[in-house]
């Protein structure tokens, strides 16, 4: 299970850093009174939910069985 775990953690680190970079870009350049800010929050919320779901699914997957099979 250790190899899939390392790969998954590396994927998450890269993914979260990428999202953070995009979010930083938005925060820096968006106009203060822009009326579409809520769309960005919906994206971030959905991404957070799916990161949690993927983490739960990762630990529910029987990796040892799959690898030995």
């Amino acid at each position, binding site marked *: 299970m250790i190899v899939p775990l390392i790969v998954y953690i590396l994927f998450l680190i890269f993914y979260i850093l990428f999202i953070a970079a995009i979010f930083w870009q938005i925060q820096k350049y968006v106009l203060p009174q822009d009326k579409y800010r809520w769309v960005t929050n919906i994206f971030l919320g959905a991404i957070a939910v799916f*990161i949690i779901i*993927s983490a739960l699914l990762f630990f529910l997957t029987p990796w040892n069985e799959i690898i030995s099979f």
Partner: protein
Amino acid sequence: MLHLKPEEKIILSIHRHWLVIAGKMTFIAAMLSAAAVFLTVVTGYLPTYLALATFFSAIYVLIILLAAFIFWVDFYLDIWIVTNKRIIDIEQKGLFRREISEFELSRIQDITIEIPNFTAAIFKFGNIRIQTAGTQSFTIKDAPRPEQIKNIILECVKNNRN
């Protein structure tokens, strides 16, 4: 970051028409439904790998969400700002590359509206081409309510000259 000059205020900020992003989001929705189809197939034929397939579907959804977010940023940060002194054109090229150009309202010579096709006529959007005193002309692409925007810009130009 936008820095306004003293006594300068934003009159209007223009994004492209929502139909531009709606087309891309339809593609994203189709890609997401592919994950649902994949899971249904796996549940029926390979129940042993259901947990693994569900995990990879979640990863797939994360990647598609990232693509949708990138489409959104490209749409959202492409903006034209009309102030009482100038027009600023901020064009997002790719994810982290931007091109910002601006010109004074006093340099505007001519404004042309173009409704390029049937869809644009139905959904009321179009291109606004602004000819300035220099050789360069600026185009606001897929702007919603182009007639109204043109009138606002012309009003600003008139006020700026008085």
